[in-house]
């Protein structure tokens, strides 16, 4: 999976939970939930969508690592690199 594909999956997921917001203006280190006003249900919904599309299951203990775009991309790339393709 290329970085561009990953980015598209993430942005599509964000548009689903916050349709009126433009996720491309998010800063890499901005807290996604705070910036887009996303509650815990919607954030879980977002992570479920990501995991369905990428096959990466993010354990609850790792949620704090994916609160920012930079953290999320880093996490997903690392997990995908480890996966046998």
């Amino acid at each position: 999976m290329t970085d561009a594909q990953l980015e598209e999956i993430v942005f599509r997921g964000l548009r689903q939970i916050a349709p009126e917001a433009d996720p491309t203006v998010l800063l890499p280190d901005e807290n996604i939930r705070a910036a887009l006003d996303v509650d815990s249900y919607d954030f879980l919904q977002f992570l479920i969508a990501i995991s369905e599309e990428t096959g990466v299951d993010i354990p609850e203990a790792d949620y704090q690592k994916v609160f920012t775009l930079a953290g999320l991309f880093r996490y997903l790339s690392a997990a995908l690199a480890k996966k046998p393709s």
Partner: protein
Amino acid sequence: MGEFRMPSLGADMEMGTLVEWMVKPGDRVSRGDIIAAVETQKGLFEVENYDNGVVQELLVQPGTEVPVGTVLATLSSEGMAPAAAPAVPGRTVAMPVPAAEPAVKPVPALSPPQPAVSAPKRLPISPSARKLAAELGVEIGAIPGTGPHGVIQRADVERAAQEKKAAVQAPPPPAAEKPAAVDYQSGMRQAIAAAMSRSNREIPHYYLETAIDMSAALSWLEGENLKRSIKDRILPAVFLLKAVARALAEVPELNGFWIDNRHQVQESVNIGFAISLRQGGLIAPAIHNVDLLSLDELMAATRDLISRTRSGHLRSSEMTDATTTVTNLGDLGVNTVYGVIYPPQVALIGFGRISERPWAENGMLGVRRAVTATLSADHRATDGHRGSLFLEALNRHLQDPENL
């Protein structure tokens, strides 16, 4: 013969607009079927029928705004038992009542529509797509539907709006967009203002609060979630809901209504779950029989409710059946919430953020994850002693997570 009336979808509703009929004359309908879509200041709702029978006549055309209680359609009861009692006895909700005169003959199931009504031509479109089309100023007739059976969906409307915009090449956004949003906002604010003003005018509130140690509950939940795939994980908010239902079973006086100067305790525990809307405002649809649901079922029900709230597919019963309300502001930095009771309910339970706090116990000071639970209750129905028993029971259930 029965009548299907504009329902009251909450204490704050006076008028409703019939947006769409899901049935036509001659259709057989059962109790619980969704037969119309209605729009109120709080959004779009799917209205359920309370009778078994055959639709006889549609009296109100889509797009018409009518007061609560207006007869929208007549149903023939086909020798069925008279309309069942409204789900919530004694509520001032306008429900279909069995009409006195059986003069009109039941219409056979296959009879053509009554000419007087000239059943409106129904385009297959989801209610939320119809609403979106109105907001975006898109002609519905011109949209190709891509949903099941050619149903027009939100995505189709969005695409049509994009194409229209591109074709017109008009630099300013459609003029209709802004006023629609403003109307929605002011309508929602007015609805909330009406209900909350009534609450503060009529209900003598009392407030109690207690801090609850969440260590046991959270460790148990984390252990459970570790075993589960992301789709099946349970959020702490759902855990709190379940504990509320358990505690209400012990202190049922807080689960019910105050109507006509009378305290009406309810048997079913239907918890109104406050959901803040992205467009602004708030809605508290009911999750039915929370006391009877397992944690997994409750998690699924809550997710379903939230997604239907967002997509405009809430059902009328969800707007009328709540016997108490839970508000959870734990996602924000708030520690404590003192809620305003939603009439005619008699209690509201609030939760703040779960956070680490200094905690003194058995002569030792430590750090625990804790939450502040509050109870706003109606002093006409209960006193502080009952309220304290409730918060105590809530605490006790949260210390015993395996048995929730």
